[in-house]
């Protein structure tokens, strides 16, 4: 997996394209195209150097096409070698990463000194890149019983470092599990005896995973990564002894890719939707040619089992909140018959939020799926066994992720898994219900066709809204919405769980979390507002809403509520801000539509004011239910 097989291999003229980058007509698009390839350390380094030589203007354009992230790194090893790969992988995953690195071995100094480089660098996160060498596991193996176990000692040390970075630097930590080197002493007994390396590492990892789950920090499961590729491949003693490089160099691109996928997930850039082809992707054979009885799927047939494994994978993803859809060149009836009648099929028709089987080109169909679900193409992964289809779709829809697959269907699953498209940093109630919600959405669209007017339609939805200030119950979902909402987002400010906790407790902020129900089900939390309190004015720092509920006048209900709250608090003015991004054109006129006046407008920001006393309540057809804000 070190060569990232789900990505295309670089074109033969890769070096030449890097050299010509500065003279390219659209250098930003070219950087994106080059970064998408599976690049070795040398190739990533070449592209990194070429980007460094672009004009400041071009580099600023490149930054604007990406989401910024400032990452500090501390390590007991040499990490400098990895920086070009980390920066290029970050671009591949939509992030403009700025790495603030420290000399190796400076972990404790950086953490415990409040004035240290990292603690004062205003970082979004710090990567604590420690491997087993960082802790005295080997030296402590024969410590006598009664003393503190090496695993506890190591866990406490890391915990102190994490706490200190949080307190002194105000940042979250990305902490690594420890991979086990291929060393042992008593064979099978190593897993059993307290103090021996294998048992210590197992228990350290278990303790870390449990602790992280209930903290704001994030886990980088390096042990799982090494488990995938094999410890004898991963560890290269020569590199460690000579240069303190913690892994064989060939794995640097994979490590960098997984690190930046995690960072991208923190910024809400994990994929949300899986688009599946059918013939030779979900089953063996072509149903239109081979017939219902002729295709291979299910137990008892080697090829059928390999496709069943893929269906199992997709089903689990669905349970984790990924939206499943189908895009296939088939007659719809013939394709649907497989889901309805074939006993070997695990996936059923109602596992899919959108099912498109026709003879139009796939790019058009995938665009239709994106529009129906109201999500971006950059949030979708398209899986198709046919290289020609992949190629066409990639050309037509460059934002879409289209993994490479080998010819052998038994190898599909490991490559799809290794591609880590659906990196999760949390699991909320909303994730569990997502597919049900999107299915309800499809039904809502049916109603929309029959309802005479939009007003009738909205009234027929029987919507209930509720408001409450931020609290512990909603915190995880608030953080998730803040970091992944792109379209209905007025300022696109991203905040960590620590920040959100601060808004929750700070009297200088007024916060709202908004939930919506309708007759098809509970949409869960769909909107978040954060206001900064000034003397007689509230500045709306953040106003965002899930695209699942746009065009339903929910924002009007929210505005009514804000104004009511402001009046109650003796506030005379609300001030809104619109900060344009590539994705949020949808809300450019948001404040005008609500009756705000534009008082200032430039490239980076429009500022809007509303005199609260003159506001006309909008009273959309949404019933306010159990608001704990206004009693």
């Amino acid at each position, binding site marked *: 997996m070190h060569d990232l097989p789900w990505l295309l291999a670089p074109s033969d003229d890769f*070096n030449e394209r*890097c050299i010509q980058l500065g003279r390219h007509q659209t250098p930003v698009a070219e950087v994106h195209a080059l970064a998408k390839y599976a690049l*070795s*350390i*040398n*190739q990533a*380094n*070449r592209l990194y*150097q070429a980007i460094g030589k672009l004009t400041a203007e071009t580099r600023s354009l490149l930054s604007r096409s990406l989401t910024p992230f400032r990452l500090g790194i501390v390590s007991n090893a*040499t990490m*400098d*070698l990895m920086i070009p790969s980390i920066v290029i992988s970050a671009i591949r995953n939509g992030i403009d990463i700025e790495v603030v690195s420290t000399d190796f071995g400076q972990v404790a100094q950086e953490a415990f000194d409040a004035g240290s480089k990292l603690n004062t660098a205003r970082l979004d996160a710090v990567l604590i890149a420690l491997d087993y060498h960082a802790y005295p596991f080997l030296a402590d193996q024969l410590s006598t019983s009664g003393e503190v176990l090496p695993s506890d000692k190591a866990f406490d040390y890391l915990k102190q470092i994490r706490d200190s970075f949080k307190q002194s630097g105000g940042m979250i930590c990305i902490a690594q599990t420890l991979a086990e080197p291929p060393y042992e002493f008593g064979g099978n007994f190593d897993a059993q005896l307290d103090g021996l390396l294998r048992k210590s590492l197992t228990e350290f990892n278990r303790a870390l995973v449990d602790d992280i789950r209930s903290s704001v920090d994030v886990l980088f499961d390096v042990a799982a990564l090494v488990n995938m590729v094999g410890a004898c491949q991963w560890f290269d*003693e*020569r*590199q460690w*002894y*000579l*240069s303190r*490089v913690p892994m064989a*160099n*060939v794995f640097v691109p994979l490590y960098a890719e997984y690190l930046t996928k995690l960072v991208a997930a923190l910024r809400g850039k994990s994929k949300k939707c899986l688009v599946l082809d059918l013939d030779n992707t979900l089953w063996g054979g072509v149903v239109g040619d081979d017939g219902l009885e002729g295709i291979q799927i299910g137990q008892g047939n080697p090829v059928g089992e390999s496709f069943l494994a893929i269906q199992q994978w997709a089903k689990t993803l669905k349970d984790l909140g990924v939206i499943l859809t189908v895009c296939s060149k088939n007659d719809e009836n013939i394709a649907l018959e497989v889901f309805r009648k074939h006993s070997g099929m695990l996936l059923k028709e109602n596992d899919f939020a959108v099912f498109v089987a026709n003879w139009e080109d796939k790019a058009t169909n995938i665009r239709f799926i994106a529009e129906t679900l109201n999500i971006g193409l950059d949030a979708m992964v398209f899986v198709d066994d046919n290289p020609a289809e992949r190629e066409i779709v990639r050309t037509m829809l460059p934002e879409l992720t289209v993994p490479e697959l080998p010819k052998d269907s038994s190898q599909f699953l490991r490559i799809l898994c290794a591609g880590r498209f659906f990196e999760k940093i949390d699991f909320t109630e909303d994730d569990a219900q997502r597919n049900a919600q999107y299915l309800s959405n499809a039904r809502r669209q049916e109603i929309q066709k029959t309802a005479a007017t939009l007003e009738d339609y909205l009234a027929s939805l029987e919507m209930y809204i509720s408001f409450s200030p931020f609290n512990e119950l909603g915190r995880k979902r608030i953080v998730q919405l803040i970091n992944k909402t792109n379209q209905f987002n007025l300022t696109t400010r991203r905040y960590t769980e620590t920040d959100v906790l601060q808004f929750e407790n700070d009297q200088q902020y007024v916060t709202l979390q908004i939930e919506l129900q309708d007759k098809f089900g509970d949409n869960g939390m769909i909107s978040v507002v954060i206001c900064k309190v000034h003397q007689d004015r509230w500045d709306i720092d953040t106003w965002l809403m899930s695209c699942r509920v746009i065009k339903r006048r929910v924002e009007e209900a929210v505005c009514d509520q804000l104004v009511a709250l402001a009046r109650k608090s003796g506030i005379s003015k609300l001030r809104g801000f619109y900060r344009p991004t590539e994705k949020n054109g949808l809300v450019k006129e948001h404040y005008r539509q609500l009756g705000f006046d534009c008082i200032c407008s430039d490239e980076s920001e429009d500022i809007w004011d509303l005199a609260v006393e003159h506001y006309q309540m909008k009273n959309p057809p949404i019933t306010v239910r159990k608001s704990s804000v206004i009693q």
Partner: protein
Amino acid sequence: MSQDKEAILDQLNSIFQDTFTEDNYSFSINTTRDDIEEWDSLSHIRLLTAIEANFGVQFDLDEIGNMIDVSTIVDLLHAKLA
């Protein structure tokens, strides 16, 4: 120089072009670490990785430290590939 060594030198040339992107230097059997400013301890690791992957060999711990000029690398590879 033997034909074998010429062939090795040829492949090394393209690996060097891949590894060192910064400087203008002329590559030959006589090139040493002093001739290429970018050839520091970090890029040495990239060079090593590329050579090992390209020739399908693995250098010993003590050999890596001695690989400070092209002729030594050619000799090492020649011995390993024989």
